[in-house]
């Protein structure tokens, strides 16, 4: 009897000690969808809508201002454009698709607050008299002073709709290029996003979250294929239960493909697969390769980097995309030593996380100090004087992001919350 009770008690304890799998259910209420018979917006119409908008009612949930910015994902010859709205309150964003019917502009999609489970449906309209006529004209005019977007959102399927109306305030703050780099190709698994971290699908989401660059974690298989995987070991934080255990780098690429699926069902991608998707399907400008491998990896990664940059910049020369910089990360002395053996390192691009001496020794293009040190302004000025850029990692605290952005000394921020960085940067008042 005592034994049975002990087993029961043990089971209760074990059950209570397991945190249930958290998830965010993507809202999909059809009543928020685009009306039938709409047609895509022209590129010039999309462009004229970008800017900083003032929330003219109901500013409490998302903040007083929203930043509106477009991005796209290409699939073969088809391209889908997304209008993202970034707010200040609780790391929130909207991701919408837009279309027109006559002189009315429609948007449909969802919103999300990344620090919590909050999400919901959203739809917006620009009526002909509120600026829709000007936006949809053959030559859209920048009569944005009267541009008003009216809309509604809810807190999930079946919940009551709230109104959200915006008025155009000013253009986006865009001066010197500022790197907004999304961690792990777009976000961590713990942020409960629609794709697993370090995957092609996540990289395709990154621009919708406000990023213009991504950071990805590179490891090597036993047969020397560079793959993306953050942790040293296979584990249930990153992959579905599969019977394999131990270091991910103790398996061949074929074994990983056959047996391992990530949390959203994806296979572990190769570095080449992700870079190909970035080049062909996005307009991202920066890829930061965080060299996590415990095995020699620099030669193989350098070969992939060289080929990918050549292909991306050939496309950029034709005006098909932005130029792309792929930076090889140097997180420790071991990787620095390995990097120094590259015969063509003078042409390689590197991002060094160590001290200034190592930055100079490696001729790294970018210095990336950890933000937790604070940023010594003298060192930043020195790096700039030497023609290098300075990025900090991995910064998520909104107050700090605001502080760093307002100081204006850095060239970019790596964050799990690129939408926060995008809001802080683009919403800055003109100087």
């Amino acid at each position: 009897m005592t034994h049975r009770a002990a087993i029961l008690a043990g089971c209760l304890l074990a059950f209570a000690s397991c945190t249930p799998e958290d998830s965010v259910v993507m809202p999909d209420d059809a009543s928020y969808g685009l009306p039938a018979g709409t047609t895509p917006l022209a590129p010039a119409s999309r462009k004229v809508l970008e800017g900083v908008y003032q929330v003219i009612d109901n500013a409490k949930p998302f903040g007083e201002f929203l930043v509106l910015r477009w991005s796209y994902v290409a699939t073969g010859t088809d391209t889908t454009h997304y209008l993202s709205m970034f707010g200040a309150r609780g790391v929130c964003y909207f991701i919408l698709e837009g279309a027109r019917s006559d002189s009315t502009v429609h948007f449909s999609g969802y919103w999300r607050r990344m620090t919590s489970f909050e999400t919901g449906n959203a739809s917006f309209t620009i009526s002909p008299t509120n600026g829709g006529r000007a936006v949809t004209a053959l030559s859209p005019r920048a009569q944005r002073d009267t541009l008003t977007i009216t809309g509604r959102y809810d807190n999930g399927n079946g919940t009551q709709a709230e109104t959200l109306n915006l008025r155009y305030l000013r253009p986006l703050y865009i001066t010197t290029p500022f790197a907004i780099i999304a961690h792990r190709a777009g976000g961590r698994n713990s942020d409960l996003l629609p794709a697993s971290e370090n995957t092609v699908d996540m990289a395709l989401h990154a621009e919708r979250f406000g990023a213009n660059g991504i950071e990805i974690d590179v490891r090597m298989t036993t047969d020397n294929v560079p793959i993306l995987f953050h942790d040293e070991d296979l584990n249930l934080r990153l992959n579905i239960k599969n019977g394999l255990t131990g270091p991910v780098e103790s398996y061949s690429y074929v074994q990983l493909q056959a047996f391992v699926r990530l949390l959203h069902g994806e296979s572990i991608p190769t570095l080449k697969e992700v870079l190909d998707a970035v080049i062909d399907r996005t307009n991202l400008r920066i890829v930061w390769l965080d060299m996590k491998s415990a095995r020699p990896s620099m030669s193989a990664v350098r070969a992939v980097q060289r080929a990918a940059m050549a292909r991306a910049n050939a496309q950029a020369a034709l005006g098909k995309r932005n130029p792309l910089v792929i930076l090889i990360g140097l997180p420790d002395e071991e990787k620095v030593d390995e990097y120094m053996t590259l015969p063509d390192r003078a042409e390689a691009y590197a991002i060094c996380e160590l001290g200034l001496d190592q930055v100079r020794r490696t001729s790294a293009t970018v210095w990336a100090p950890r933000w937790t040190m604070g940023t010594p302004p003298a060192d930043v000025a020195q790096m700039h004087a030497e023609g290098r850029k300075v990025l900090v990692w991995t910064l998520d605290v909104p107050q700090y992001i605001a502080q760093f952005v307002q100081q204006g000394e850095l060239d970019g921020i790596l964050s799990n919350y690129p939408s926060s960085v995008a809001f802080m940067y683009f919403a800055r008042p003109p100087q």
Partner: protein
Amino acid sequence: MTRSYTFRAFLGILGAVALLLMVNTASAQEPSARPPGIASPAPLRLWQWELSIGLSLSTLPRVIVEEELNQSPALDLRSRLGLPWGFSADARLLIQVLTNHFEFGGSWSFAIGRFAVSLGDNSAWWFGFLTIDGFDNSANGWLNYPNVSLGYDFGRFRVVLRAEMLLVLSFRSYAGDYLLSSDKNGFGGFSSSVTIEQPFWKNTHVLIGFKASYLKYFYQSWFTYETFNRYLFIPELSFGFIL
């Protein structure tokens, strides 16, 4: 989500109570004097002073720490001093070096037969610092814990159930030269715990406790600068000798 966590916490506490009672039964000691009480809400005699020393181990949620260190034991000192009219002054120090938590407050207790109940309120000041390679950080803050305890005296040992709320009064952190002052005046979560005070060896008594917390903010994770605004499960085991 919260309802699910509460249900799990309830089951966990039931399991913990049953397990600890069985451990107690299995390791039956010879009858001893009525055990002193640190966690117990039983009223103390005037100026009666109780003290315990032990260890406490919390597990930080995987979503915050990922691969990094998620468990770090803390030296756990508790004290309770009997005051007039059923009041007592309570204090607890949790020392982890990188993070330290000094809690003090008071409670009012009364007993009905073998049952005892106390209502209390504790405040805590905590501070942490991290100056290893790549970090130049420190933080501190004020917390408040309104609490209620229910105890039952089985004679040879006592079982204590306790529920407490966490109110985050203030929080300040520094990175290098930068100061971030972020007042978080608000509800930070809730905890429930079960503790057993029982004889251990001769006249020595020990306390064994399990605490299940559902917190939006856990001070021991300050150095991760996590920004989640959602309840995370944090288990804590504690063991102490009552001196």
